[in-house]
């Protein structure tokens, strides 16, 4: 388990998250767990999409076509 740190969020947002957790039927055990899950989802999507710019992706695809892979 990696080290934990505290993050501040607006109280009304916290209350909404808490309600979501309570209604989640046990999927999330705490607001902490819920927030961690949401952040991970967002960040993972971001990093995957940002690896290549559209121009770079086209350039690599052109090369892979020349290599016979596409």
């Amino acid at each position, binding site marked *: 388990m990696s080290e934990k740190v505290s993050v501040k969020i607006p109280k009304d947002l916290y209350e909404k998250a808490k309600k979501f957790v309570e209604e989640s039927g046990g999927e999330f055990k705490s607001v902490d767990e819920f927030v961690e899950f949401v952040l991970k989802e967002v960040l993972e999507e971001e990093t995957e999409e940002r690896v290549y710019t559209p121009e770079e992706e086209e350039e*690599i695809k052109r090369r892979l076509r020349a290599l016979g892979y596409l």
Partner: protein
Amino acid sequence: MKVFILGIDSAEPDLVFGEWRKELPTISQLMEEGAWGKISSTVPPITCPAWPSAFSGCNPGRFGLYDLRYRKLGTYTEFGIVNSRVVKVPRLWNILSKHGMKSVVAFVPVTYPPEPINGFMVTSFLTPSVRSPFTYPPQLKREVLRVVGGPSEYIIDVYDYRRKDPKELYEELRAKTEHDFKVIKYLLKNKPWDLFTAIIMSIDRAQHTLWKYFDKEHPRFVEDPELKDGLLNLHKQIDEELSEILEQLPKDTLVIILSDHGAKRMYYRINVNEILVNEGILKLKKRPRLVTGLRELDKRGVIDWSKTSAYALGAYIAQVFVNLKGREPKGVVRPGEEYESVREQIADILRNVKGPNGESLNTKVFFKEEVYKGEMLDVMPDLTVYFDNLHYGANEAVGFNSPYSLETIKGPDDSNHGEFGIFIIRDPENRTKGQLKGLKLEDVTPTVLEIMGTKGLSKFDGTSLI
């Protein structure tokens, strides 16, 4: 103990351990002094997933890669290009970093974008351009560019190799090998390391175009005195460079030479989707009059997904995806019994494809759960097909009006990938000697970690050889 690994992408054991052994004195000596054997590649034997498997100790079902591209979620024919962030399992250098050991990682496929490690990294042929941040730490890029003579001299890969004059290609591949070894030797001399690993790509590129000049059994064999030793000479060049490197390594360094897959002569390609169309498995609203790629057919709305039960991807090795309900955007095949029977039906059709003269082919069909395990099993192809045990390649395009073709729409090709690579290990403590059997790529990482004294800290599909 320090470990030095040189990967020679696509080096074929039947050549390196066989007819060319005497021509490669350095490799030959390492074999005599250490242990060696054929190493099973991944299914399929393609650069990616093979190198990530070797460097993670995991089968591809754990990291979800089956080619240099991957299907984007929720699409049939939109593809992402494999990159370091797609591989979620830790690789050798990540594990060593955690244990405070330093790695130098040079030209290893699927490392772009480079990630922070305890050590130094120069990424491989999937680097977009010289402008890209292709090193870790970022300032290493300036040193690397200086070593090769500036940004205009930096070679990421040899491009468009099937359209070039073969002699010109040969010269470019020699230059690429020399360029890469310049960087490797610079890093060896100037950076601290516990693990040094570098991959040379030129043999892979050469085999697709220069195979027909040495192999008299190749159906398209060409007699050419200048090119007949082309592929061998590219091997010799690496052997000579390796000799120079071995002299510079500290005495207690364990040396591993390996390839991610081999190569074999390719006769024809099987037009898999054409066959699936003929069998009513892949439904087209209209047959194309010209040879048309699968992606293009999908973009034009020609594929009737509501009546399609499967389709195939892959240029060398066919990857069949069932149009499974709940997984595919317009899935029609129900999971369970129907899914199983569709796979059996397709496997049966493809196993029975004959050669152009009616000859039987030694075709192998792998069902995904037989060859993969892990969290990413769901994204792996439902079937992977080695036509004539890889002597026949595959084609995705439709419109050939024949189950076979010599070319893809991109041009001809001499060789396909082989299911075995080479593996040589020279241990200064002589813990392993002679010929080894039953090796697989997944064994490489556990072996290296055992040697480096970090045994038992991670879980792998492979096992240590020592």
